[in-house]
């Protein structure tokens, strides 16, 4: 274990990514205790102030403190991404397990069904789901979860297909294990590793999606602070108050990239080891 951590630290980008991730999480968890301004409180007299002293990131058109909105927005974005991938992981893992284990017609049905899902341009899919459920944080979490689902399913199915042929599964059958026990105790626990690694990358996508959908007005609604929403609001003022768009967009970019790089580094690190015993 320590070996992996040590190797992780050797890569400069990994270190940077880890720092950014810890910073953003720290911001989300501890930020509200430090930031005194209420993100929803408007100060019409102080509107559109550039970043200075009292308002480190400036104020927006309604006089709200951008910094505190960023902090509270962090919570929303990070949480939205998390719930989304949990939904995707649970559904996708279940489908992948069934598909890979039973193969044949069941496998075909599930995989072709998921192919249909993947064939949809992802925005179209999100729009369809949100249109059905109404624009809100919950809707986009479900939409992103459903969108992530086929990726998890494919990943798990691949693992199951190879694990299924292993001798310890055959041994399990010899001692009388039922199919459901084999899936639960023999196959699933040995799939977890790739699931976790890919989740970091899928999480990056989820955060991006959540912000993008909110940016388009399909997700979190104003006045709730959320990076995507704030970016959308900032568009109008790009020419004379660029910081309004800059900060939320920067945070989305940095956070998603950081998770992406971390996921890549983890995958490179753990992949060859997965093949060694």
């Amino acid at each position, binding site marked *: 274990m320590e*070996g992996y951590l040590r190797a992780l630290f050797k890569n400069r980008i990994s270190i940077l990514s880890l720092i950014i991730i810890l910073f953003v999480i720290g911001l989300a968890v501890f930020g509200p205790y430090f930031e005194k301004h209420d993100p929803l409180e408007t100060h019409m007299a102080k509107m559109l102030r550039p970043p200075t002293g009292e308002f480190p990131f400036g104020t927006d058109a309604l006089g709200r403190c951008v910094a505190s909105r960023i902090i509270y927005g962090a919570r929303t974005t990070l949480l939205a991404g998390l719930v989304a991938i949990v939904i995707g992981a649970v559904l996708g893992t279940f489908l992948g397990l069934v598909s890979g284990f039973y193969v044949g017609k069941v496998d075909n049905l599930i995989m072709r069904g998921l192919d249909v899902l993947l064939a949809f341009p992802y925005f179209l899919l999100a729009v369809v789901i949100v249109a059905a459920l109404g624009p809100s944080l919950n809707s986009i979490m479900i939409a992103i979860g459903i969108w992530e689902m086929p990726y998890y399913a494919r990943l798990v199915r691949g693992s199951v297909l190879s694990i299924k042929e292993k001798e310890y599964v055959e041994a399990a059958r010899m001692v009388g294990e039922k199919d459901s026990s084999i899936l639960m105790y023999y196959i699933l626990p040995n799939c977890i590793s790739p699931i976790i690694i890919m989740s970091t990358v899928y999480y990056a996508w989820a955060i991006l999606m959540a912000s993008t959908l909110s940016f388009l007005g399909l997700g979190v609604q104003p006045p709730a602070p959320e990076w995507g929403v704030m970016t959308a609001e900032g568009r109008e003022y790009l020419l004379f108050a660029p910081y309004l768009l800059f900060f939320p967009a920067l945070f989305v970019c940095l956070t998603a990239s950081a998770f992406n790089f971390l996921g890549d580094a983890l995958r490179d690190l753990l992949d060859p080891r997965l093949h060694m015993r």
Partner: protein
Amino acid sequence: MIREILQNQEILLDIKNLILNFYTNRGQITALDGIDLKLYKNESLGLVGETGCGKSITALSIMRLIPAPPGKIVQGEIFFDGKDLLKIPETEMRRVRGGKISMIFQEPSTSLNPVFKVGDQIIEAIQLHQKLGREKGKRKTVEMLEKVGMPDPKDIINRFPHELSGGMQQRIMIAMALSSNPKLLIADEPTTALDVTTQAQILDLIKELKKDIISSMLLITHDLGIVAEICDRVAVMYTGNIIEHAELKTLFKSPLHPYTRGLLDAIPKMNAHKKELGFIPGTLPDLMKLPEGCKFNPRCPHQMEICLKKKPELEEVKEGHFAACHLYSI
């Protein structure tokens, strides 16, 4: 030294105090812990040991094929034909590899390029080291294939590796390796991946070739039976050290080191009376957590106090018979 002069044997390969480390995420592993090995001209030396003893690594070190991170040769010299192979430039080493020193590997199916015809692969080797044109190269290839006992060589040169059996693939490897008339052939577990009857064919072939093309050979294996068939001298390795070496008959008839004795006992005898097989208690040590003193001491039936503290040196116990064991230290 005296023996060499007396028996008029020239040294072809001389490895002096070779130390090789691997630096991994889990820590440092000393794969070779000071190897001293001499190989004489026209001799077949068997290098024997179990998993992790470093025998293959020794061969790869001679060929300078150890990946440089994570591996690093920390100390030592490998003299071949008068030059220290570890000090010559890479361009010169490339001429040595496949030219003066050839190697055949364990898994013939992965040593041959699957997308090229077998004949082309041999011709390439010939052209590289002997600077012959394509036509001459093709003729030499057919000649080599005949020498290694391939049926219908003119047809075989147009085949792809996957069309041939394991035994035939290994013959191709041997043909390729011997095409440059190397001074030294290194064979790393050449028959381990083959069936018993195919192994017999290949061993028979090697014995034949020893009479004419193969001059000196370093045979690496875990199978003492194969060593007994082909080799003149044997060196036994254990976790990165050579713990015994001697002439073939001497080693088999009067092994000195307890590990060698254990290995010989572990071979099932055809005329055994009981349902019992010899073994060495314990397991091979984790290369990260090697015992103090003699690395074999936890498993040794003759363990003494000194074995726990001091690592034994390889000494000439009897004439021509070397062992690294405190039982024989002067």
